[in-house]
């Protein structure tokens, strides 16, 4: 799934490709990975659960404390997409993620405030694997969004990579697969 560009690459552009390829690699790995490791599952499940729970509580400060500086967040339109080839719904670096948080508290961000959205991120069974340089985890997820108009419910799967950080973990990336994006959804300005 590695994209090869047509000319010699600079180190800078190679960094971009490397990051993208790593995202795709994690996704691909979790699709067909064999059984997850029960000890690691038990260790990682609280991280994924807390991440979802803090987002729903709009406890964004605490949530950001869970993120690595290298954090990337990808919401492809289709699970077969590659960030170097396809536009995505979201492809964020750490900076833009913090912009999202700022945005959620801007009283003029008409689409995501007044009333503030009520959300539930329903995380299902968590699976995790030690991939050597990082831990890769995945869980199915349903997102509920209640604000104005009809509630939005999206079923999908999230894939996270994590690194150990003292006794805990930092999230280094998150990919959110939402098959309904292949059809049509309301705007998803509230997703993070």
């Amino acid at each position, binding site marked *: 799934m590695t994209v090869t560009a047509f000319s010699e690459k600079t180190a800078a552009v190679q960094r971009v490709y490397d990051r993208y390829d790593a995202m795709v690699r994690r996704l691909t790995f979790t699709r067909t990975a064999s059984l997850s490791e029960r000890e690691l599952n038990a260790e990682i499940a609280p991280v994924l659960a807390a991440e979802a729970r803090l987002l729903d509580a709009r406890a964004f400060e605490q949530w950001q404390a869970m993120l690595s500086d290298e954090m990337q967040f990808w919401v492809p339109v289709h699970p077969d997409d590659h960030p170097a080839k396809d*536009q995505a719904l979201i*492809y964020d670096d750490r900076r*833009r993620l913090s912009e999202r948080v700022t945005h959620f508290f801007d009283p003029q961000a008409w689409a995501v405030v007044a009333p503030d959205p009520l959300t539930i991120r329903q995380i299902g069974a968590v699976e995790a694997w030690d991939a050597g340089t990082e831990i890769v985890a995945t869980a199915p997820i349903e997102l509920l969004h209640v604000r104005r108009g009809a509630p939005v419910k999206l079923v999908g799967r999230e894939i996270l990579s994590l690194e150990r950080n003292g006794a805990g973990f930092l999230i280094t990336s998150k990919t959110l697969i939402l098959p309904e994006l292949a059809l049509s959804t309301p705007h998803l*300005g509230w997703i993070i």
Partner: protein
Amino acid sequence: MTTLLSKAPDDPTRPDAVIARGPDMTDRMNHLVRDELLHRSVYTDQELFDLEMQRVFGGTWVFLAHESEIPEAGDYVRRQMGKRQILIVRTEHGEIKGLINRCTHRGTTLVPGEAGCAKRFVCPYHGWAFDLDGRIANLPVPDSYDKLYERPFDLGQVAIGERAGFIFGTLAADPIPVDDWLGAAGPWLDLHVARYPKGKMKVQRRKVVQEFAGNWKMSWDNAADGIHATFAHASYNTLGKSADTDTVLARNPAATPMVSKTLGHGHCVVDQRPGIPDGPWSTMRPLPTRDDLEESLREKGHEAKEMFDLMTGDMINLSIFPNLIFVGNQIMVPEPVAPDRTKVNFYLSMAPEAEEEVDLMRLRVDEDFLSFGTPDDFEMFERVQEGLRVDEEEWIDISRGAGAGDVVDEDGLVTGTVASEAPMRAYLAEWKRLMSKPIPTKVRRARLEDSRFMQIIKKRQMKKEKTS
């Protein structure tokens, strides 16, 4: 038994009949759309919507696809034209056809997916096969038809027109040429493409589709509404400021030199360039991968503003009525679903002949506005639709700019400030024109003489008749 082709030329059941459907709406249109006033039902009425699906999305040119989406023979994309599915296909001879995705036997859609490459189209229901140019190629058990060769089972088609790689279609029986229809918008379309290295624009395969609970014309009111950027997109501008960037939307609407221009047939353009002396790229906030990609370009020796500007839109918001809107690097195609529901297709255009960094950057640029700008637009559209539910508030004042800043040229085209509602009045005038009268339409179809299969059937049947 009378076969179809033996029918009188004016028989409305002939498959090549020219028919103008629906009532004359002139009086009602004159009531609903006035110089300065617009009636709410234009956004809410089911009957008007159904008529729009025929007259606006069918009776005039409609954007369907870009030729870069079907580079090879057999390539096709499936597009919506009102409620009709149209296959835009490149034939073996490189021609572009607009086939109605509807088997001529019973009506099954031939193609279930969004895009693909085919040698022929085979209907799954009873196995009928059609060539890429729509001619019927085969049907199993042909003897089960009496005078099969007189039955025009070739696929229905729409008329196709092209400009600068953009493919338009219509069912109008006698449409004006696409270039005439584009009129003053044509050169702007050419200009849009001209900035791409070697003039090559490519539409990327993956579109984003989002919908809002409002009428499709909401996106049209918005397209050339320069002043909403300051207010509806206040939060986007705030994000820009927090990154020390003046986004293009953050101007003072009373003082900006930007202008909007109507271009005829409902088309219009908002040229934002006058307000951006430092060029498009100067308006962009920090973006994921931006540092790396800029560094890479500079390392490769690129310093020219043009190369960097190419990473984002040309700051010319061109809108071709009724369904082609250019914003940033994206082509926005509104798709009416119901009077109060609209899908918006966001296609991304790429610059395949530029340095790879350009396209890598383009992939990320418009995710920004989709995250922080589009939601606010959709929120407005839905809230306008809610507001329009009040039966007793019938009229919307759309006079802004008229007699107050608008400049009308000799062709009747209007240049206004960003606050002017001239573009709205202009597209509504075209809408009114289209909606007022039944429009003669015709389904295009290969002629019997062109179908090898039918010729064979005919010969076979003739022979049989002779021998029997």
